[in-house]
């Protein structure tokens, strides 16, 4: 029993953090937001250079062969630095899906290797998401059709963009025609793959939400420590302090929930989906709380486009319902907790 990360995991996380701190400063994010594509190929290339796109790809395909536990850490960093790129869709969720295809599926190995190299963007058409993120920019789309998985090149789909309050999210409605040529998994194996993709997508969203919460808290702490009213920093007022203390408390208790979900998913434990839903719910609520309290302690500034806070707030609002909204995840929790043989109570936590 050791519920901690390895030194390697921490070192990789810290290296990524140092990299993003310089490569993804808020000014740069704003620049990328304003572009038509909303994506920076240069940043994507650098992320690949850092090994982020190789992280989950099996070693047999030239990747690092890590997994969900590592992504629980990475996703937090992507959230914290507000990376305007659906990187985890390609490098974690799509990789999981591709790696799960029969080994002789045409294209599989090539796509995985291109993910490692960082020169492919894969969009995911999971039915839980009414719109597809980054569909317009993708090289390849993995699409759902009656439980089957279809791999469709961008040229074969029609994308109608639908703007989000989070300007870094580029969503679209996708029209396409399924056919035998695009099918890479039949309904029987597709059903399992899509279920896994949902859990993995929700886990990455949860991680980002937790990172976003921490960023909003940090920005708020910085602001209230320096902003003065009535002759003193507003951060010295109890009413301000206590709101931020509540955010810090919720963050403290959401992290371990995320990590357990990652471990359960990585090891395919019986109730992994429930743990993922718990993580998504806990991290989503925490991020919304951090957003609300962040805006509040920023005062009128919190309501503007000018302070950096807004970028993180908007992503938190948006991601909360991506890969399953609260109702979806609460239902999975509810079905588990209220089930007849639920392993509740002390002493049953890590036994299966």
């Amino acid at each position, binding site marked *: 029993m050791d519920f901690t990360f390895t030194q390697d995991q921490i070192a990789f996380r810290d290296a990524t953090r140092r990299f993003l701190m310089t490569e993804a400063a808020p000014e740069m994010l704003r620049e990328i937001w304003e572009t038509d594509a909303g994506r920076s190929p240069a940043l994507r290339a650098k992320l690949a250079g850092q090994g982020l796109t190789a992280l989950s790809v099996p070693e047999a395909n030239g990747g690092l062969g890590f997994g969900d536990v590592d992504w629980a850490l990475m996703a937090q960093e992507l959230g914290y630095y507000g990376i305007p790129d659906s990187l985890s869709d390609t490098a974690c969720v799509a990789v999981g899906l591709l790696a799960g295809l029969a080994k002789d599926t045409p294209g599989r190995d090539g796509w995985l290797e291109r993910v490692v190299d960082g020169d492919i963007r894969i969009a995911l058409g999971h039915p839980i998401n009414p*719109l597809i993120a980054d569909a317009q920019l993708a090289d390849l789309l993995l699409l759902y059709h009656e439980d089957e998985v279809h791999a469709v090149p961008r040229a074969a789909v029609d994308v109608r963009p639908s703007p989000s309050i989070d300007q870094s999210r580029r969503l679209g*409605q996708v029209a396409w025609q399924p056919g035998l040529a695009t099918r890479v998994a039949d309904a029987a194996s597709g059903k399992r793959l899509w279920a896994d993709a949902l859990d993995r997508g929700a886990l990455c969203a949860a991680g980002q939400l937790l990172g976003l919460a921490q960023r909003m808290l940090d920005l708020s702490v910085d602001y209230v420590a320096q902003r003065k009213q009535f002759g003193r920093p507003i951060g010295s007022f109890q009413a*301000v302090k206590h709101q931020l203390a509540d955010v810090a408390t919720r963050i403290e208790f959401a992290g371990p929930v995320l990590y357990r979900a990652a471990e359960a998913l990585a090891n395919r434990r019986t109730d992994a989906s429930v743990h993922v839903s718990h993580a998504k719910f806990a991290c989503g609520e925490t991020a919304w709380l951090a957003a609300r309290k962040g805006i509040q302690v920023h005062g009128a500034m919190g309501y503007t486009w000018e302070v950096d806070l807004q970028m993180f707030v908007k992503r938190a*609002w948006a991601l909360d319902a991506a890969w399953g909204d609260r109702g979806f995840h609460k239902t999975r929790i509810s079905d588990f907790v209220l089930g007849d043989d639920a392993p509740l109570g002390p002493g049953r936590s890590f036994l299966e």
Partner: protein
Amino acid sequence: MDLTFTPRQQAFRAEVRAWLEAHVPRERLASYDTREGFEQHRAWERKLYEARLSMVIWPEALGGRGCDLIDWLIFEEEYWRVDAPLRVNQNGQLLLGPTLMEFGTDEQKKRFLPRMASSEDMWAQGWSEPNAGSDMAAIRSKAIRDGDHYVINGQKIWSTRALFADWTFGLFRSDPASERHHGLSYLLVPLDSPGITIRPIKALNGMEAFAEIFFDDVRVPVANRLGDEGQGWHVAMATAGFERGLLLRSPARFQRTAQRLVALYRAHRATADRDPAIRDAVLRAWADAEAYMLASYHTVGRMAQGAKIGAEASTNKIFWSELDLSMHETAMHILGARAELLDHGKEASDIGQWLEGFLFAQAGPIYAGTNEIQRNIIAERLLGLPKS
């Protein structure tokens, strides 16, 4: 206690309803935070004025209709019932208007109020400064007397729609040696005065809803001063806080939102009920919107009997701003993965309106005195607790 409307009140309601049904624009106007929308709303205000419906509680001689507050509640109910356009000149009409009514000279009243009622003059408030937000008395902008003018230097911020408005009003330090609440004067300033620069501030939704106003040797005639020199704080604070707060946030608005939320919930009931918190929040929305309406009628009745309403205004502010936020959060959760979609997206239909309302609701607990300040006021003035 008589909770029925008199025949006169019923007739007034019928008149307002008929007029609105005949005149409310069929298409939603553009946002009043754009130049185009601003002018559309000004035109609408003109129509209201011509029907003597823009400021129903003002005296007829000043462009109003001489109604009491019950009539005003009725007017607002009818107005929100049909989703008539937002009121673009409220910062003038409701923040400055009552103060002018109380402290203005006869000449000032005649000069400013009818044009305010008709929105020929559009007003932007100039309350805040970069370092005088919650701490209102920390004002630094100066207005130094020079013969029959004041010369203004300084900066105001969070001036709503100042980019498009004609006038601003606010407090300026006319005695440069003074501190805090002393030595301030209340001035009305044309926004086209030489020396004024207006820099827009983008709101959360990306629109230029606010502005900073920079004053560089701006000359304003002494005739534009409201109340006595150096008495600006007194003038600004004296107008009944409760009535002003009530007029700014009429109960009908929140009843309308609650009604829309119930409809949204019913339309999405199957998915919404997967999260049991949603139904609870919907019921609370109705209950609290109803409570806010009832409290308004109750207080208006007490005021008519001569009761003075003071710090209770702060309980109003907290109540409606938290209610508004909670209703919009609930709507976002009902909409789920589509909640993030902007109005102008093709998939959005009426989703974008909820999102827009959700963004605006974020400002509720902040503007017009943060809810933290309101809680201080309640604790100190209503409950009598010691100052910190």
